[in-house]
């Protein structure tokens, strides 16, 4: 029993320990530079978007990897793959398949047992995956039925390639980086310091905030309120899924299903 056998010492490390500040600084400088160049019309909007996606998602994924002590080179590779995918996606719909790159890189790291601290590469139960799928399906169904009626958005059936490209973006960037950082890294660290409720609140609040500052989110008040509602619900439930099944996979499944439904509404 730990309380009898192991030496006890109060926790000394900080919540944000091991953050790759140098890499984050480089990404911030990149975003700033791109912004200035865009203002000077020296950079096309597509390039600014590439830099933004790379910096935003790259920062989340690199930080999550650094917090579980994956080498900084691996983090840099992940950022580079995100940048390449964002650039490729701008070239055409098929280019979005490049988003499988970061996903495969994370899968490789997980298979090597380097991401167990994030809840990846650990055994996952079928029950957990099914629960995640049910949660995602429930929220997605509600979104499709309720939001389409109340928020005035419609299901897009005429732009399937764009929807698939958006889904690829979710797989390799949006959902992957958000779940890795907000659940696998932030919630996981927080729940070792505080209660589940406090940790889930912090992680979910940060998760919602990340989307509120996303320039791609439509600035319609009703859509923002709807986004906050669904994202808060999805974030909190995904915290519980990680807590309950000790794996990030059920949360990834639920988020992917929910965002897939969201993409069909055409808000992305």
């Amino acid at each position, binding site marked *: 029993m*730990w*309380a*009898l056998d*192991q*030496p*006890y010492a109060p926790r000394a490390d900080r919540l944000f320990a091991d953050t790759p500040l140098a890499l984050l600084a480089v990404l911030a400088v990149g975003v700033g530079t791109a912004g200035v160049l865009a203002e000077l019309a020296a950079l096309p909007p597509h390039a600014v978007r590439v830099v933004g996606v790379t910096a935003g998602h790259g920062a989340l994924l690199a930080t999550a990897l650094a917090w579980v002590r994956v080498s900084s080179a691996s983090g840099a590779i992940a950022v580079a793959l995100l940048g390449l995918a964002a650039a490729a996606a701008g070239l055409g719909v098929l280019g979005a398949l490049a988003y499988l790159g970061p996903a495969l890189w994370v899968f490789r790291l997980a298979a090597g047992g380097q991401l167990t601290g994030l809840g990846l590469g650990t055994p996952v139960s079928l029950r957990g995956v099914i629960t995640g799928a049910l949660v995602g399906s429930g929220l997605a169904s509600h979104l499709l039925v*309720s939001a389409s009626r*109340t928020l005035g958005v419609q299901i897009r059936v005429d732009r399937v390639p764009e929807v698939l490209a958006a889904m690829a973006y979710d797989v390799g960037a949006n959902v992957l980086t958000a779940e890795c950082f907000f659940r696998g890294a932030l919630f996981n660290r927080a729940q070792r310091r505080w209660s589940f409720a406090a940790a889930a609140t912090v992680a979910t609040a940060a998760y919602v905030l990340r989307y509120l500052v996303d320039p791609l989110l439509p600035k319609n008040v009703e859509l923002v309120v709807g986004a906050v509602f669904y994202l808060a*619900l999805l974030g909190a439930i995904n915290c519980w899924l990680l807590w*309950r099944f000790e794996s990030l996979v059920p949360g990834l499944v639920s988020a992917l299903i929910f965002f897939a439904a969201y993409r069909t509404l055409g808000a992305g």
Partner: protein
Amino acid sequence: MILVAAALAAVAALVALEGTGPASLLRHAYLAPVLVAALKFGAVGGALAAVVAVLLSAPVVLPEIERSGLTTETVEGLVTFAVLGLVGVLSGVLWTRAGRHRRRYEILVMIQRTLADEATLDVSLARLRAALAGRLRVDEIALIAREGERLVVAGGDRVADGSLVARVLDTGESAFVGDAGGRGRSRRAFATPLVSGGQAIGVLAVERKGEISVGERAALEAIGAHLGIALENARLVSRQRRFAAELAERVAAARRELEELDRAKSAFVAIASHELRTPLTALQGFSEILALRRLPPEEVRRLAEVMRREARRLGRIVSDLLDLSRIERGLEPALCRVPLRIEPAIETTVDIFRQGAATHLITTECEPSLPIVAADPDALERVLTNLISNAIKYSPTGSTIRVGARPLDGGVAIEVADAGRGIPAEALSRVFEPYYRVPDAAGAARGTGIGLAVVKALVEAHGGTVRVDSAPAIGTRVTVVLPSSGGS
């Protein structure tokens, strides 16, 4: 859970089919599954069911708000949202608390029952741990209690230095660790002292992969405090029972001793009466002869000598009885101590016996230059008389009795030795007790059983000591040591 989900879906379907809008009476049916979820799964279950119910109601209520604004119907729908949330959360919280209180009382009763059986601390702790493990719903549990300098551990081998339990034992304060290892869901550890009289007499430690809420920690602290008191009470009861058993044993022994003493006193009364009566009868008989008959002078002298001897014997018995009375009242015999030479005192006493009874050969062996002692002459004579009288009584006719004295460092040792039947080893320690007689001595000779008790009291009143050495069938030697007065 599936039933609750199905019920919620059924209500949603019914509300949709009815199509009467946000104020449909069927909306109240959501309360049933929400309440069931709260009672079954607690506050979290109730809240989740309420959220699902609100989500299912939203497609009915929100579009209506968009279309018509805040009308009576839409407000009713919004109020339903609030009611569902309140019912789900409050019912769950109250039910969880009630369950927690019920478990706590069950645990308290269990503790009392477990400790009701008298058992060693190790066994009691093991039983308590087993019973608590089932009720507290934790992954690991340990109970540690101090027993003197030792720590009794149930649920582990030992308490490592610097461990959480060791810290709680040292500080006497509860400690919670949010991360005691484990991947994914972290392992929580909580240790609380078992308190009795303001002291930490042990620790209750639990570990669980998952939450140990503030409420649970408070409940564990209360259980720890109760365990401390219950353990201390069990210890006290055990100690009291041992004490009662010991007391009963002592009372029984004292009663046996008193009964024996009573029997000895009864025997003493009979013997003493006989002992007093014998010289009195002789005195009475001879005095009547002297009064009623005319006898020749030689016969008168012989009878007078007998009467004198019997009178002395009577006087000795009465003196012994008086001394015994003083001893029993806790007083020392009254002495009039003067510087005294031992050899003349021994010779005088031995002469009396030589004249009185020629049945034994009494020899004296006094070493020269014996130191002067400060003694009461009368008391010394009674000591010697008792010892020589005993030697004569308990040694065969014709045997030799040796009376001697030799100097010791700071005193004089007087020895009276016989070649009699001896005293059994088991009786040696009791020969100085008043009324005690060696079991097989009663038939061998007359005696009151107070002689040696008086000897001991007299010798000790002089600051001396007396001891008996004896070997059955070989003889007995009594040694009296009297301190010298400083001269020689």
